[in-house]
């Protein structure tokens, strides 16, 4: 009698790998790069520095802990993110792949597993309170780590007694995690899906309240600016290899002949929430991810800006959203507007705030995708103008402060565009 083979035994090894496996392979690349950059002892010492830092904006973990430690920090948060998705039985889709890369990217720039843990626990508590499976909240749990500095800044600011700071920061994180699913669901309606970083908008509002209360109590959040420089060659090689890998992963799609036509179809979407290229085009969408990463890295280098924690977070975010709303056609006009404004504003073009605005303004890509390049450019200009100001209101406690700024731009710009369009239609 012939032995029955499991169904997956007939599948090619490439088709047995899912998106989570591909992220794990990418994290393997980070481990190799970290060990090339720094010896293990230096990495451990750097990790300690990262875990005990306030981590609020602008804190570049490459400056705080070194290249190797920042990479391993990204690996740790990435592994926890993938593990959490497995544990909660959330199947890979564009939103989750994006959220995982967003988490990994911001592990160079304010996130670590200790500051994430209380917030994740708060989201889990909320799912229990609602008597719903945690799987339903897995996406918002990953994204809610935008509030990590709420925990780490409270714990390590030196304003409080160490025991009070430890317990208080944990409780504050749990409280924020409990409420962020409610607030972030509500803020979606404010911008109508034109701000891809909705959780940044919700997080900005929460951070604004916390900063206001702390200022009233005479416990202000001290601004910080720690950024690194001088690692362009190392990070450029690492990032280009990573993006080449993801371009290559698109070949895992069984329908190879559709990979290039799918890029044309992806470019035909406005990118407005919720547009999931992975569900629509499967692994073909990974080519768009790779391309978005290459564009982000190349623009950063061409502008003469350093590849550091800030810019790497922006570039990896662009890559992650390459499977959930962004593509070159809707991103480049917004970036062009941001570059134009960064050239004429008072701060030098390559300052961290300008570079962050140029990379993260792509959260407004759906405006360009839906209403054309001219409105997209205007969105980029307005975003770059407003982002520095809203950062002050949130005290650097909201990592996705560009999402907060983008929410305001969408809130103002989209109704204006619609009014002009209606006026045009009526005449």
């Amino acid at each position, binding site marked *: 009698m012939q032995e029955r083979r499991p169904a997956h035994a007939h599948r090619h090894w490439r088709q047995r790998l899912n998106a989570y496996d591909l992220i794990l392979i990418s994290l393997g690349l980070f481990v190799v790069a970290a060990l090339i950059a720094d010896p293990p002892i230096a990495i451990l010492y750097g990790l300690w520095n990262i875990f005990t830092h306030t981590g609020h904006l602008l804190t570049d973990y490459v400056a705080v802990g070194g290249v190797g430690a920042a990479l391993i920090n990204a690996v740790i948060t990435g592994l926890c993110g993938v593990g959490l998705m497995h544990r909660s039985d*959330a199947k890979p889709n564009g*939103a989750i792949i994006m959220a995982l890369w967003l988490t990994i990217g911001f592990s160079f720039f304010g996130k670590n597993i200790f500051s994430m843990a209380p917030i994740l626990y708060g989201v889990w508590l909320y799912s229990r309170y609602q008597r719903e*499976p*945690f799987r339903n909240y897995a996406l918002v749990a990953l994204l809610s780590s935008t509030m990590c500095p709420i925990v780490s800044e409270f714990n390590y600011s030196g304003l409080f007694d160490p025991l009070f700071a430890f317990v208080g920061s944990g409780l504050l994180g749990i409280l924020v995690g409990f409420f962020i699913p409610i607030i972030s669901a509500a803020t979606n309606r404010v911008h*109508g899906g034109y701000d891809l970083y909705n959780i940044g908008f919700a997080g900005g509002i929460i951070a604004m309240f916390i900063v206001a209360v702390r200022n009233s109590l005479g416990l202000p959040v001290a601004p910080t600016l720690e950024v690194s420089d001088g690692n362009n060659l190392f990070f450029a090689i690492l990032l280009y290899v990573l993006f080449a890998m993801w371009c290559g992963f698109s070949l895992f799609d069984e329908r190879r002949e559709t990979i290039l036509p799918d890029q044309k179809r992806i470019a035909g979407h406005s990118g407005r929430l919720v547009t999931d290229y992975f*569900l629509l085009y499967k692994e073909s969408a990974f080519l768009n991810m790779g391309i978005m990463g290459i564009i982000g890295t190349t623009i950063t280098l061409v502008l003469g800006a350093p590849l550091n924690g800030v810019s790497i977070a922006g570039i990896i975010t662009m890559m992650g959203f390459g499977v959930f709303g962004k593509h070159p056609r809707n991103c480049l006009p917004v970036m062009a507007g941001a570059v134009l404004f960064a050239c004429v504003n008072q701060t030098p073009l390559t300052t961290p705030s300008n570079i962050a605005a140029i990379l993260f303004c792509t959260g407004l890509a759906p405006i360009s995708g839906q209403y054309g390049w001219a409105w997209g450019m205007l969105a980029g200009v307005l975003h770059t103008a407003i982002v520095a100001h809203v950062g002050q209101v949130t005290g650097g406690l909201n990592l996705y402060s560009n999402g907060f700024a983008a929410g305001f731009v969408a809130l103002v710009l989209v109704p204006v565009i619609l009014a002009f369009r209606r006026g045009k239609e009526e005449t």
Partner: protein
Amino acid sequence: MKLRYEKSVRVMSDIMGYCHLIGCNRFKVDFEMKETTTEITIVAEVPNITEKQLKEMTKLLNMPRQHEVEQYYWNISGEEEIDNELSLAGMMTDEATVDYAEGVLTVTVLRCEDSSEA
């Protein structure tokens, strides 16, 4: 499942918005909430619909259910005035059928309530 009625109405609104975008101005809606399922049938008079549009609509509405996406983004659905790609409606439903005959488009979607409560 929380907000069951609100979410189902958003799905209905999304589909009606899409039908309006492709030229429909007259709808008949059947909306039925049972103990564990919600079934929505929309009958729309659409004079012209291309084969490509029909295929696209069927594909989008038959996307696998995405509970975590629904939980986070359901509030965006139902904004029929602007770009409407039906993706979210597809992610919020378990089954969908799309039929077109003699100028009448019939869309039926089924939402099953999540049985795996914590």
